[in-house]
């Protein structure tokens, strides 16, 4: 009887999203996974840039008055205030290993992060994942593995906020 009640409690709590894990964005969870990993993971291998909501607000003005093509896009401009945070994970050493870690976490969290479906994309491997809550997009993850003469690195960009499909497609358009 007692065990059954505990089971119900756990079920409701988890479905109510109260597990601390899911209150972190993807990159934060990735870093935790790397630190918990028994394999040797060098701190020097990767870097994580964090932009908090507070810093985002301060940057907003700069982004809105920017001359960069990137930020001049109307649709992007519209979305800028709705971006709450940004994290960028960059691995300059052994990017393949980190790509595997990313894929491992994505697999673990496949109920949370779904691959972004773009009808015009005919590539098999998705590089963008979305986290939704009801009909709102609350997180966007974009992963890029660059392997050419100039550099071999893995980058993961992680936006959270009240985001839209429009923003995602604009982001990719750019």
């Amino acid at each position, binding site marked *: 009887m007692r065990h059954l009640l505990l089971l119900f409690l756990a079920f409701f709590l988890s479905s109510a999203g109260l597990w601390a894990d899911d209150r972190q964005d993807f990159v934060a969870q990735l870093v935790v996974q790397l630190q918990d990993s028994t394999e040797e993971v060098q701190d020097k291998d990767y870097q994580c*840039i964090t932009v*908090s909501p507070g810093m985002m607000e301060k940057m907003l003005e700069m982004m809105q008055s920017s001359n960069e093509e990137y930020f001049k896009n109307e649709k992007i401009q519209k979305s800028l205030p709705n971006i709450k945070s940004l994290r960028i994970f960059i691995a300059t050493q052994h990017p393949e290993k980190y790509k595997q870690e990313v894929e491992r976490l994505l697999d673990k969290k496949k109920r949370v992060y779904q691959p972004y479906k773009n009808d015009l994309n005919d590539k098999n491997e998705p590089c963008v994942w979305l986290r939704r809550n009801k009909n709102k997009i609350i997180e966007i993850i974009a992963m890029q593995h660059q392997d050419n003469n100039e550099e071999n690195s893995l980058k993961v960009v992680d936006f959270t906020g009240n985001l839209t499909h429009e923003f995602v497609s604009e982001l990719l358009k750019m």
Partner: protein
Amino acid sequence: MDYKYIEQLLERYWEAQTTVEEECLLRDFFKQEHLPSHLERLRPLFHYESTAQEMCLGDDFDAKVLSQIDERSVTVRYNTIGYRLRPFYKAAAAVAIIFTLGMAAQHTFEQNSQAEAEQNYNYANYKDTYTDPQVAYEQVSSALETISGGLRASGMGLQNDTTLIKK
């Protein structure tokens, strides 16, 4: 015949060093018909142990105890309405808990659907890498540019993308 092994076992038996299996072995050994005289004297001990295992209660015991159990199960001690309703109290409590949890979960779901992203992420834990917004802006722009360039290059871009010729 070499009785060295048995003698060693016996030594350990007196010292309480033997295992249950070894003790079984000893008892079995002493069941043999012919034993050397120096070991024969110990036969009664192990024979006694083997026999004592067979000590049993009579056949009528089962009936006697079962009748006692039946009597006591229907004990009159707590035969009040409160006692009889106990299982229902437990069930009611369980239903109440589940109902409350369900309402709480529903409430949280509703909260989430209207919520700002604040409800979903613990922003208090975010530690800025750059304290100067200008520096942050430059780093972020450069990172974003690379990534969108990269995504473009990997074919994620839309077909009517005219900015491909840029840079």
